[in-house]
């Protein structure tokens, strides 16, 4: 459809409905509140369910209920609310329920601030709930990508019977950008395992409890097998000018866009820079980064946290190359100028191998 200027938080609801989502449960929080408002406006219009929950704890458990009943369902929140939801994340993964959760990250810890941050990476990507489980995590960098990845999230959730988190910082939800929406997709029928209150589904059970050690171990191994499959099939990333790069910048979400401008400016200054922007944070594009390590001298990870993404990059590089880290927090988005300064300093001071700086890095 024709591009239209739309706010991220509004677009995410429209994308979800186009993807067949027909239930939303949520609790308002800055900077995600427009999502619950849009859901309240539109869900009833499409014959769906909207409930303003009494808390994020209730919201995530309603999500558990809706998913159990075989409905494409979602919720959204930001840091403090997402923390409250962690119990539910674990149960959803344990009971293998497909659902979509949007986290419009803000500054923490505690009440923190409401400006954009990426400090929820550990909580979401590494698993903030108890037990051996993973969320599939998608990290949009623009409002268009927020739409595309939200729609993909519902597909992945169904394919892997697992929660999928759309992890963006608050600016992505708050900003307006042009978006081309795809055509609506049919609402899928309830999956065969769902509990819908019919004769056909009477024997179904949704549960995460397995008290026998061997049975629980088998269950966890089965979850693990799904995650291994996701690691094989689902990593998504974008690269930009990495073919001849000496330095590769790594950043996700809004930072990925800043880094693209950094690459362009750096190249004009004779530095052969490139960019790798992870689009899936779990599964992480480990192999893509490992492959780059063969040709790249330095990695610079830039994120809106004090160093969370950098751990995954270091694991991918396996110590074969230096991985520097630069972060801004508290609601600040790194600027092109300051990242460029850091990159230049990394070349002069941090690089273990003398770097050839050609007069024209283009």
């Amino acid at each position, binding site marked *: 459809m024709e591009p239209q200027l739309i706010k991220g938080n509004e677009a995410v609801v429209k994308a979800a409905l186009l993807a067949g989502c027909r239930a939303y449960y949520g609790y308002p929080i800055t900077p995600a509140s427009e999502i619950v408002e849009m859901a309240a406006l539109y869900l009833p219009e499409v014959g769906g369910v909207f409930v303003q929950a009494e808390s994020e704890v209730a919201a995530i*458990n309603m999500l558990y209920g809706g998913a159990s009943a075989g409905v494409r369902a979602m919720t959204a929140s930001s840091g403090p609310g997402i923390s409250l939801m962690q119990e539910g994340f674990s149960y959803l993964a344990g009971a293998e329920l497909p659902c979509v959760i949007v986290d419009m990250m803000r500054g923490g810890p505690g009440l923190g601030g409401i400006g954009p941050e990426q400090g929820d990476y550990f909580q979401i990507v590494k698993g903030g709930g108890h037990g051996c489980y993973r969320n599939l995590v998608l990290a949009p960098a623009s409002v268009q990508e927020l739409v595309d990845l939200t729609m993909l999230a519902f597909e992945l959730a169904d394919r892997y019977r697992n929660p999928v988190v759309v992890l963006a910082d608050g600016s992505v939800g708050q900003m307006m950008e042009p978006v081309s929406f795809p055509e609506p997709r049919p609402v899928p029928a309830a999956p065969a395992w769902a509990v819908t209150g019919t004769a056909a*589904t009477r024997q179904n059970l949704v549960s995460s409890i397995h008290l026998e050690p061997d049975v629980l171990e088998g269950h966890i191994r089965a979850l693990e097998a799904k995650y291994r499959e996701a690691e094989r099939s689902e990593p998504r990333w974008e690269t930009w000018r990495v073919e001849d790069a000496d330095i590769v910048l790594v950043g996700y979400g809004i930072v990925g866009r800043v880094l693209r401008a950094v690459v362009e400016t750096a190249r004009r200054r004779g530095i052969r820079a490139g960019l790798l922007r992870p689009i899936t944070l779990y599964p992480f594009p480990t192999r893509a980064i490992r492959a780059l390590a063969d040709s790249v001298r330095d990695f610079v990870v830039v994120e809106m946290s004090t160093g969370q993404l950098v751990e995954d990059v270091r694991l991918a590089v396996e110590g074969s190359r230096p991985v520097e880290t630069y972060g801004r927090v508290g609601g600040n988005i790194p600027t092109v100028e300051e990242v460029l300064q850091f990159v230049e300093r990394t070349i002069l001071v941090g690089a273990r191998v003398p770097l050839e700086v050609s007069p024209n890095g283009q």
Partner: protein
Amino acid sequence: MASDTPAMAVVHGRSPIFYRRFDRKDDDQHQTHYCPGCGHGIVTKLLAEAIDTLGIQDRTILVSPVGCSVFGYEYLDVGNIQVAHGRGPAVATAVKRSRPDSIVVSYQGDGDLAAIGTAEIVHAANRGETVSVIFVNNAIYGMTGGQMAPTTLLGEKTTTTPRGRDPAVHGYPLKVCELLATLEAPVFLERVALGSNKQIMATGRALRRALENQVHGLGFSLVEVLSPCPTIWGLDPAEAQTFVRETMTRTFPLGNFRDRSASAVPQRLAVTVPDLGELPRILGLGPASGVDGASDTVAPASPVPTADHRIVVAGFGGQGVLLLGEFLAEAGLSAGYHVSWLPSYGPQMRSGTSNCHVRISAVPIDSPVVSRPNVLIALNEPALRKFLPSMEPGGLVLYNADSVPVDCAGSGAGITPIASTAIADRLGSAKVGNVVMLGALLEATGMLPDSALERALHRLVTRERWYELDRAALQAGRAAVRRMTAAPAEPSLAQDPAMG
């Protein structure tokens, strides 16, 4: 043996709602996991009988909690969902809302419902969810081994009240039916007990009523069952039954606390499901139509290839700061540019100041944050002072005033005073001051074609009155800049006949 006698027929026997064998159990699949004399077994049996009597086995969905009744799904041959501690009412809410033909039963104990899940039960009841809740109150935490429950009696010794429950330290037994009876929405609230044959039969009737109400779509029903826990209480089953009957009921009086079964009206909402093809229209994704109903299909655009407008609009809330930014972004999009719009948000937006960042660029936009603006629209003095230092040298500043503060004048950026609020006042509403500024910006820079602005107005302004006023404001802003260019020394807008 009597059962071998052909003249005898079964009048009370294993309910067909129970699985024949409890295959989901790890061992002893012919019996429940409950202790001898446990009330849960009796409640489950009465529940099974009610389901059978009402003929709702296929439709029933049992929500099993955490606690001794965690394994409800091992016994009842109905749809089963096992949930997190205390969250049954939230799960039940969602299941029932999406599957209104199902009969949803949330089975909960006193820790589950009255401690960890207090918020969920109160709000599900207050929303009047059409679900049936069975609340088994045995005044103790059974599964974890005998700790205090919110319903533990005063003086009762538990592993966490080793000296007895002292109200000064532990508070009082929580009376759930009384609490919920303060709410408007519940249809049926009743406290029953398992303390005698008669009480057990009354419990069966109450459970049936709670389910029947749901069958009739009548809203929220809850049955609280005072129930024995012989093992943890350290009593034999018969003594425990006596304790329920003679002691528990003194703290928790039996009776009905709400019964609107006869007067309540079915709450089911009429749901219309539109055709898939209707979705784009419903979501406002089709071509927009403004006040005159015409489409605003984008005309072929010819963006300036070097364009990189990094704009900050700032002022106080109510000046239309965010909308001015939106006009610019929308017009930029119409003119074929890449655009982004990022507002300040949250408390600071409500406490007075407001700003937004707009980028209009010939190339894809890296960051929506404008840290070094080349255009600043300052709608008041604090905004001017806040953002002036970040301006790119040679940038353009439009300032809502008759004159520029002396100490700002030498800042390096060209500050143009446009008394946009005053101009808007004369047009009839201070609210269009933002559009006056928009006109001034376009006149001063020519950054966007008129046609793009027309389309932006068309899309964003849906009321006739404002549409005309905004068009006038746009022209007034342009005129103000033209006058300044003509007579830069001493602009005096008041003398403009057009403004009069």
